[in-house]
């Protein structure tokens, strides 16, 4: 299981180490840093390789490489005696050392939980915050893992064991001499609903659900979808007193054939009746995530018109024309639309005029961004203008892929609909609400 954990800042310095078995040298992290720097130089080389067909702007290759290198380190690295499993969050790298055969997914998932917990306690995951709260971090890690086995990862339980820092509490502690550490065994730790603590009281009882769907798609040059799928989640914010038992029913539960549930959901009832029955954790949590894979259920809510010619290097200018239009939105509005398009390094300048929003080409990274905003179906936005290639470079050998971001409020693209929410086990009547929103996930258009 997990032997040791090192936290590294962006510069690669270990700022915290915790060992659950015999201490390991922090020099072990050098393997990780080495892999990172070699991934860095590799991507740097590729970027340079791209560039050397034209006149390279050295800085551009570098900044791109930084972005790419962060994810280029393979998650599992073998060293002579240990394996390093790593995950990154913000600018902090969590590197776990293991010695025996383990499930790497288990370690990666655990690392993400650790990062989630930091997020929960400190509001952000960054080396400055973690260094500030180093003792608390250390105490948390000790609570989360014992001998490499996860001990308590539910935030409810951790909150009872170690209270999150607040300004008020630190003042109170200073005055009364009380501590941040819970003195009694958390109630939920061993019950069969470990995610919920007992004795919760609210004056306003409320339960809100957000159905969020992300469309992942690859659209080819002709405008047809090569791949399209929906990653959906239902996030809940439940503030209910006592031990409520909730039942959520859907109009069309058949849509959900590929689901992952929060442990609170009773699988048997879902299997038999296709309703979600659960005793919710207190506060916000992800009730369910689902995946709609069959292509005919995924209506692409936006269409992209495009034409692109490169022109000749140093000579004739190339032309770019883009047009966006909503479709299949059932009268809902496309909001927060933006587009990014990494241009080849050969592109030197672009003069582009958008019909709405702002467009710019980053001179260093050569990424074209267009912040469109809201789309008015009567006046579909467009972007047109010219681009020029640096003199002496070769014409680019491929067209770039553009990625789109947008959101459509009050619409679940898959058509999923919650019909009712019932509460059992408690007498009060809660406020309840369901909100739908669809967003672009990894939405790529090849042009």
């Amino acid at each position, binding site marked *: 299981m997990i032997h040791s954990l090192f936290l590294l800042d962006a510069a690669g310095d270990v700022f915290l180490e915790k060992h659950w078995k015999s201490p390991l040298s922090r020099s072990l992290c050098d393997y990780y840093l080495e892999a990172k720097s070699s991934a860095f130089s590799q991507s740097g080389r590729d970027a340079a390789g791209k560039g050397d067909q034209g006149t390279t702007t050295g800085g551009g290759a570098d900044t791109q490489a930084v972005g790419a290198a962060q994810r280029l380190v393979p998650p599992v690295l073998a060293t002579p005696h240990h394996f390093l499993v790593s995950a990154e969050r913000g600018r902090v790298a969590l590197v776990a050392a293991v010695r025996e055969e383990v499930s*790497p*997914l288990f370690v990666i998932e655990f690392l993400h939980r650790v990062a989630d917990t930091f997020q929960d306690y400190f509001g952000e995951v960054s080396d400055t915050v973690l260094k500030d709260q180093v003792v608390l971090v250390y105490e948390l890690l000790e609570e989360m893992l014992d*001998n490499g086995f996860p001990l308590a990862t539910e935030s409810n339980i951790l909150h009872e064991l170690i209270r999150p820092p607040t300004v008020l509490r630190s003042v109170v502690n200073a005055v009364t001499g009380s*501590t941040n550490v819970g003195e009694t065994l958390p109630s939920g730790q061993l019950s069969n609903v470990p995610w919920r603590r007992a004795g919760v009281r609210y004056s306003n009882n409320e339960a809100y659900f957000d159905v969020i769907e992300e469309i992942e798609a690859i659209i080819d040059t002709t405008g047809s979808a090569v791949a399209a799928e929906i990653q959906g989640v239902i996030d809940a914010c439940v503030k209910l007193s006592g031990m409520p038992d909730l039942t959520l029913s859907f109009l069309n539960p058949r849509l959900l054939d590929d689901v992952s549930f929060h442990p609170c959901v009773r699988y048997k009832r879902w299997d038999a009746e296709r309703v979600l029955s659960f005793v919710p954790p207190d506060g916000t949590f992800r009730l369910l995530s689902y995946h709609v*894979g069959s292509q005919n259920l995924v209506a692409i809510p936006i269409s992209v018109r495009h034409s692109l010619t490169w022109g000749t290097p140093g000579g004739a200018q190339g032309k770019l024309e883009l047009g966006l239009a909503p479709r299949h939105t059932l009268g809902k509005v496309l909001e927060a639309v933006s587009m990014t398009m990494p241009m080849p390094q050969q592109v030197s300048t672009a003069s582009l005029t958008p019909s709405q929003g702002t467009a710019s080409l980053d001179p260093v990274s050569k990424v074209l961004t267009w912040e469109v905003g809201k789309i008015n179906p009567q006046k579909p936005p467009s972007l047109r203008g010219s681009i020029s290639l640096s003199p002496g470079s070769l014409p680019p050998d491929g067209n770039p892929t553009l990625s789109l971001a947008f959101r459509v409020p009050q619409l679940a693209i898959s058509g999923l609909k919650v019909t009712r929410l019932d509460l059992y086990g408690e007498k009060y009547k809660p406020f309840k609400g369901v909100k739908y929103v669809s967003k672009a996930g990894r939405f790529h258009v090849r042009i």
Partner: protein
Amino acid sequence: MTDSKYFTTTKKGEIFELKAELNSEKKEKKKEAVKKVIASMTVGKDVSALFPDVVNCMQTDNLELKKLVYLYLMNYAKSQPDMAIMAVNTFVKDCEDSNPLIRALAVRTMGCIRVARIAEYACEPLRRCLRDEDPYVRKTAAVCVAKLHDLSPSLVLEQGFLDSLKELLSDSNPMVVSNAVAALCEIAESCESDSEPLLELTPALVNKLLTALNECNEWGQIFLLDCLANYNPADAREAQSVCERVSPRLAHANPAVVLSAVKVLLGFANRLEDQETLETLLKKLAPPLVTLLASEPELQYVALRNINLIVQRRPSILRQEMRVFFVRYNDPIYVKLEKLDIMVRLASPANISQVLAELREYAAEVDVDFVRKAVCAIGRCAIKVEQCAERCISLLLDLMQSKVSYVLQEAVVVIKDIFRKYPSKYESILSVLCDSLESLDEPESRASMLWIIGENAERVENATEILTAFLEGFHDEMPQVQLQLLSAIVKLFLKKPAETQTLVQQVLSLATQDSDNPDLRDRGYIYWRLLSTDPAAARDVVLAEKPIISEECDMLERSLLDSLISQISTLSSIYHKPPHAFLEGVRAPGVTAAAARGEIGGIGSDTPQLSTPAEPPVAAPPASLLGDLLNLDVCPTPASTTIVQPLGMLNLMGTDLLGGGPNLLPAPQPIPVPSGALADLFDLGGGAIPAITSPKMVWLTALKGKGLEVKGTFSRRQGSPCMELSLSNHAMAPLAGFALQLNHNSFGLAPTCPLSLSAPLLPGQCQEVNLPLATGGMVMQTEPLTALQVAIKNNIDVFYFGCTIPLHVLFIEDAKMDPISFNAAWTELSAETEVHYQLQISLPDGAASKLATGGVFLSSKQQEGGAVGVPGMEVLRVCSHLISGVWILAEIRGQPGIPPVMMVVRTHVPKLAPLAFHSYETLLCSY
């Protein structure tokens, strides 16, 4: 208020100040001080000097302070074992506290203090905690047993904690059960294999675990599922019921739970008999696997590596899901390559057009590695899906038009594979390929092109010109290109003998005379002999049908695949190797020899590459040819040559393969030669009689030799005794500067040439050295006479060791004596010197020739019979002549088939008699 203030240092000794604060009366100040200490500790500062002061703070009712002190203790107890004893009392007391949180905390911390003496004190409290009324304490105690086992396995056994752990498997609380399982699994992993299995899964226990599975937390579920995966169900019905109870886990939000559940289900799927149940089960597996791909890139990578295995074993599961493996331009490269591989594995006639359209897109990307792999993937599709081969070819030709160098190179390499799969089907593209010849500048693509030309020599019009052009630059090519060029020209010659006579002679002389490359030379000689002795046979061999490659070439071997499938979700599933192949201290669990073989093949690259199929140099069955080529080494090598062998290779052959099943070793087969030509070739070193040589013994262990291990034996080579040494380096640094000396000995033996190695001995390497010996050194009688004292020197030190030289190595070859002089000598050596021996064997057939191999020669042979002796008894009179000039005469009597053999030895030097007898015995018993 933040903790960063704890890092600020003052100029006055920091430790000194902390010490003062720790001893302060005020509780609050104490706590702040401990926090400062912990803060320093977490960043790696050494604050162990404060140990006694911190431990003094332990007796407190403030839980936070207690926790902090415990954190400190865990870190430093090991470096201050004597001081740590001071803390024991508090632990013991805390283990009886009324608050279960404190009891659990104490038992948890105690386990983390890695001091053997404390472990002994921990036993009693631990035993109590294992039976604690509170499940939270019990589950913590279960983990503590594993910690204790890590520190001192014997203590855990003595105290019977393993049995207590097994009792916890039936605990009412699921969390306790899962922790007990986790602890037992960890202990079992580090245990020796000879003990009985620690965790024996019975149907009753499995039932308990399945019940606990529903109720424990996600991490517990992982432990339980991983444990259940090892269960071997009694019958299909049981397998089915386990599957039904495990499959709800597929909908868990934690991907690690999902993957562990997939592992259990795939393992049990093999046991299902009902086809319909199996299919329903497999259908359930697809959605969760697809969902795993929607997570962070790190998780995706792990998921993809596992999916790669699953797709090879049960392609039906994900057949419909091709689209999710389409590559996105901003995927990390390791995800891209893995997706590409899976796409090819899933390719089928139904989805091939989609796949090819995608691959075409990928071939236009900017990332060179990825583009190459994409082009390679097109070729793999052609080989896998026969219907689309034509489209693949035209796609490849299209891509070649782009004139992007690396696309072109890669395309030629894969087209070669396509030619191998569909011989003489796509000849029409030959001319296009030949047009691109100029642009090929990588050795692999040049070699592939030469292979294509050689194979299709009769169809390529200007083959002769092309190959002539290549031959002009012969010396500048890489060895692989030279080899292919040689083969191609020989093929061309066999097809068009008339016009290429000079060409083939040119290439053969270049290969055999001007080349330093032994592979090239050998291949050249083989062709030359073949062509000169029997051109018809040469044609049969060189132009023989090649085994057709298929898509299976790039699949993992089945038994390895099965063992990896049972390891899904673990590290081995990422590396596609069984755990013992890359983890320290993991024993091979009854691996089949076949699996071990697969592993050898997989070591170089974990994704086998189709584009470099090992082409046999001559189309004879490669295994047997190889076996024979290797056998050449058996011939006596010239004195003082060194053969470098990687040590690891020896081990692999010796242990893994032989241990698994010796019958799997490529048996030396007779050479499949059409004429006698090859046999002649292989018999290069024949002629000399191999002297009897005993196997090498360890003379100097690596321990004594500071990493240098010397194994050795003596043999007789070319008329003089010879010391055969294997020097292997077990140290971390290279060894050099070797020299060897023999102390004065009874025969005055000394090495005739210095011990020289061709290169420094690198770590892990082994070199063989033969050192001829000669008499002429100082003579000094040793006891026994054959004892030798050896000193060996290297850059580290001088080492001494002793060994004995078998007498027969010292016998001179031409010690023949006619019966008359034998009789004279025999009588001259009076009967007093006579020594009698008895051997409990029967006289072997060909005893005389056996003795002769060791330099003991027959003088006369008689059949006893009639009245004098026993009928059928043979009497051999033999003599041998020692290097020092002493004659040894012996009379051997025995009967074929009936023991014993009697032996009478006479010699001038009585001390030699037992040694001579020993040598004779060795010779007679040899073979």
